[in-house]
């Protein structure tokens, strides 16, 4: 029997994976974007789970909004990455440290 806690553990795992993806990944900025998307999905999963168990449809409605915003966001992110690539000819994270003090 799959209980609510299974779902929650699953989404927590998903979140942790995405966080780990942000830390550990030092190669490609594209993967960073994907990790962020994954983070959002983990949060969305939580929304759906709570919405389902509390019989409230509002949570699932929010998920649609979030997905729409996330899509727009990643579009912007991709656009930034494209222009970054044009400038630098590389997407390596190690090389992007313009904010170094």
């Amino acid at each position, binding site marked *: 029997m799959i209980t609510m806690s299974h779902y929650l553990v699953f989404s927590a795992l998903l979140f942790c994976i995405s966080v780990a993806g*942000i830390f*550990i990944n*030092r190669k490609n900025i594209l993967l*960073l974007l994907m990790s962020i998307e994954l983070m959002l999905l983990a949060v969305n999963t939580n929304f759906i789970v709570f919405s389902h168990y509390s019989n409230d449809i509002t949570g699932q409605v929010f998920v649609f909004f979030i997905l729409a915003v996330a899509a727009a966001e990643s579009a912007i992110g991709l656009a930034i990455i494209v222009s970054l690539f044009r400038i630098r000819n590389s997407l390596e994270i*190690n090389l992007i*440290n*313009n*904010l170094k*003090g």
Partner: protein
Amino acid sequence: MESILLLIPILLLASSIIIGLSSDSLNKFYSGVISTSLVFSSLILSIIVLIKIYSSNDEIYYDNFYDWISINGLNIGIGYLIDKFSSIMLVVVLFISFVVHVYSIGYMKHEEDFKRFFSYIALFTFSMILLVMSNNLIQLFIGWEGVGLVSYLLIGFFYKKSSAIKANLKAFLINRIGDMFFILGIVMIYSLFDSFDYRTMFLNLDSVNLSNLETYFGLNYIDFACLLLFIGAMAKSAQIPLHVWLPDSMEGPTPISALIHAATMVTAGIFMVGRLAPFYELTEFTTDFILIIGASTALFMGLIAIFENDIKKVIAYSTISQLGYMVSALGINAYTVSFFHLFTHAFFKALLFLCAGSVIMSLHHNQDIRKMGGLKSKLPVTYACFLIGTLCIIGFPLTSGFFSKDLILEVMLYEETTISFIAYIMLLIGALVTTIYSLRLMFIVFYGKYRGGDVEEISEQSNIILIPLILLAVLSLTSGYIIKVFVDLPIFMYGIKDIHYDGMVTYIEHGILSPATLTLVLGFFIAKKLYKDNKEFLFLENNFLVEIKKVIKTKYKFDELFLYSSDVLKKTSIFVTHKLDIGIIENVFVNGVPKKINSFSKILKKTSSGYLYHYAFSIVFSLVVIFGIILVRVL
């Protein structure tokens, strides 16, 4: 009367400006003549003033030419106060100035800066007249500073000589020390009377309750004010320990030494104390101080003169010593006696200096007495004048010095206090010392054999040099006979000082029988034994005397004292700059604070690496920590 009095200083100022600004087309001789004739007219006018004063009945001429500063009840005028005291001083100053003008035409004729010289001495005479005529302390102070300034300019007249520049700076600085005290004294007097005016001050003197005033360092108000004023006089009149500038001032041309550093400017201090006599009458402490300073100056500075080898410096030290006599007389409130010595001293000291100038000129600017000798036959007129000057300074009976110096010793003895008796003894020894150094100078310079090379080159100077000498010599001999004038001289608003004097004949008899004559005879034999046959080194046979000579030769280390104190001052200021200003204010506060901020930010800088994953990690890590803390709290 007012126009005459106004004309006296104006003529001198005009002389200074005309000669100073005239173009090169005016030749030296004529500019000298113009200057001299202007001074001469001033002299004539001052003699007219003197006659008017003495023909009237104790009248005092007092008025302001104009109000110079007038703010809120503070009135400073430029004016005049002419009584017997200042009118005599006027004539003396102008006479010496006139004589020196004439002498300078001859003495300075080969100098390039002839006109500058004449402009300066006219300016000097103007300042001195301003000082003497003044009716208030501020005008006195202006004159006081004026003579100080011109003295500075004239000591450094040969400005290409580094020793002259050092000497004039020294004179100026030492005088500044005195002036600082002097101006403090003026301010103290002002705060007592709300006026700088002599007449207002002296008339209100009775209404001021002196016992109610504040005390300073245990001295009452008027003692302290008088002390400050006297310190000003000490610098100007070259008293221990502020005398160090006067011997060095001999770097200036010789006529200047005669005019400024012997006969007139240095007596400004004496004149000032005499002018403010009503204040000095009220103070016992300060007059005792004055007496001690005067007596020790008279004795110890005379001792230095015995060992000097520069003809001008010997006379310079003798000037300091004679000023000591005048100051001593001030110290027992015998202002007129002091003034009498000032009067006679002005003539014979100017005479000695001008004779020295004549000798120096004849020997082609050699001032070292070791290279002189035997000039008696070569320079007969100069010798005769120098002899008269010497006789006057040692107080040979019936010369002017005899009258004035004996009178000082006399009143000193009549005072009958312990301190005045000590001073009397010191002055008596001083008289012996005076005799020794004066005769030594004469024996070494004029007797024996010439030690400076070819004796044939030496010849007497022209008449323009010699006439002033003769004029001064005559006055040196005769000026003592008007002793009665000084005995009866009233101190302004104060009356006549009681001095024992019963006629000329009694006085002369008494004077000849006094111990001073003994010192004269003793001094003559000592000097004759030591110096007549050039046995200058007789002293060296006795070890004790050698030690004394060593001490005196150091000039009591007053120069070192000043150097040391300026060194201490310098070290203090270096300490303040380096340790306090740069050390604390600049390094700790001004530069220290930004430095600390900078180094702290350097540490902080390391936390911002610019790598995204570092930031992300720190965000997540801190979130975890915060949530952890909250969780721990909640549970």
